[in-house]
């Protein structure tokens, strides 16, 4: 049955009135985000893979420093940031100055994603857990004596990364050792 135009118009007006009651009178336009942050990775898997690659590059930089005693601050700046960067430069410069060297590399595996912040900021964008192995990378002094007699067993690490200013890579910003968490 076809309704008269007047009835149909009345129903439309009534609906509009009812719907308008759901809108708060003091509604305001939501503020625009202060800064635009575009998540650099589409999936968690991509984020984890990027973090693994970033930590491998970080370890490559410090392994080179430990093996050769050459401290290339630009190489450190390419893989770490903030206090993690300054701490690394301080520690590895001191080890180099003391004439201590390692004979094998620090390695890691078993990386799993803790979090990937898609809508946050470039700071602390990814955190992962990984199993780090220092057991072969013991230091020896100039006389060839081991600095530490005991081996450090593989243990769990919590690693946090910032997005670099050019949004092109991840930089290690925090590195937590979980004691009593062998892996």
């Amino acid at each position, binding site marked *: 049955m076809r309704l008269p135009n007047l009835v149909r118009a009345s129903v439309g007006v009534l609906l509009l009135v009812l719907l308008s009651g759901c809108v708060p009178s003091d509604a305001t336009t939501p503020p625009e985000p202060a800064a635009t942050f575009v998540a650099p990775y589409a999936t968690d898997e991509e984020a984890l893979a990027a973090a693994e690659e970033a930590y491998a590059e970080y370890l490559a930089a410090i392994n080179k420093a430990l093996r050769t005693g050459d401290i290339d601050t630009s190489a450190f700046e390419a893989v770490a940031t903030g206090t993690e960067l300054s701490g690394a430069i301080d520690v590895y410069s001191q080890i180099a100055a003391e004439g201590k060297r390692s004979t094998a590399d620090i390695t890691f595996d078993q990386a799993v994603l803790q979090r990937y912040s898609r809508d946050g900021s470039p700071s*602390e964008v990814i955190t992962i*857990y990984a199993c780090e192995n220092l057991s072969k990378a013991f230091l020896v002094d100039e006389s060839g004596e081991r600095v530490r007699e005991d081996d450090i067993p593989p243990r769990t690490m919590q690693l946090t990364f910032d997005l670099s200013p050019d949004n092109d890579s991840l930089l290690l910003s925090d*590195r937590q050792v979980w004691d009593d968490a062998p892996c």
Partner: protein
Amino acid sequence: MLRILIFVGAVFLLAAPALHSGPTVSASRTCQAGAELNGSPECYTDASVGAGVIDVEETREIDGSGYQSDYVAGSSANSVVTEPVVNLRCGEGVPLGCKVIGNPPPKATDATGPLSITDIAAFRPQPPSAGMQPNQWMIVGLDTNFYANASAHVVDGTLFGDTAQVRFTPIAYDWDYGDGTTASLGTPGKTWAKNKIAEFDPTPTSHVFEEPGNYTITLAVTYAAEYRVAGSSWQNVVGTLTIVAPPLTATAGHATTVLVDQDCIANPAGIGC
């Protein structure tokens, strides 16, 4: 307009990685790998004072059960206390400068020798305190983060009629969660923010309450001590001192998400509040 009020705030639980399954009692600390390889002391905040590897400056003789030496730190006329040696790593005999793993060398027993914790009873460490997140409430089945406020510090006083200092270093943190479980940890723990993880994420010092109710949580901090007199070097004090922090009282409950029609804080009598 309908609004959703979540009583307990946003709770985002991440899938626990296999690396961290099971009880979360591991210690977390920040330490450069190189510093750890180098035996840097700041990497071992839970190490007891005086333990670990030490260098003996001069060694005279050794037998099968222990050794004696003139420990250079004290007077040359001091008497000597012999302690069993755990392990020697220097091969046959103990050459000068040998590195000893295990017990420290014997020390003199006069005024510059070892003291026990009772000898320094006049020196009282700063009382520790306990903290928790959320403050004074817990959600059943989710991690509650506990942490100790205690750090190494020096207390001035008088010893042997001379000015002296005692340095207290927290080495152990024993928690009684009031639900029949306890934990003895080597780390004080820290807030979620300092751990850089989300609220209700597990931490090395967090605990999960399984039943609703009121709980009293107690923390006991154990301190190792060292002393020095008139600017001399730090000497170990035999024994440890344990101090109980003021207990925490908190309520554990279940988290519930409900639909309400307005802000329950502004109008507690509103529908659904």
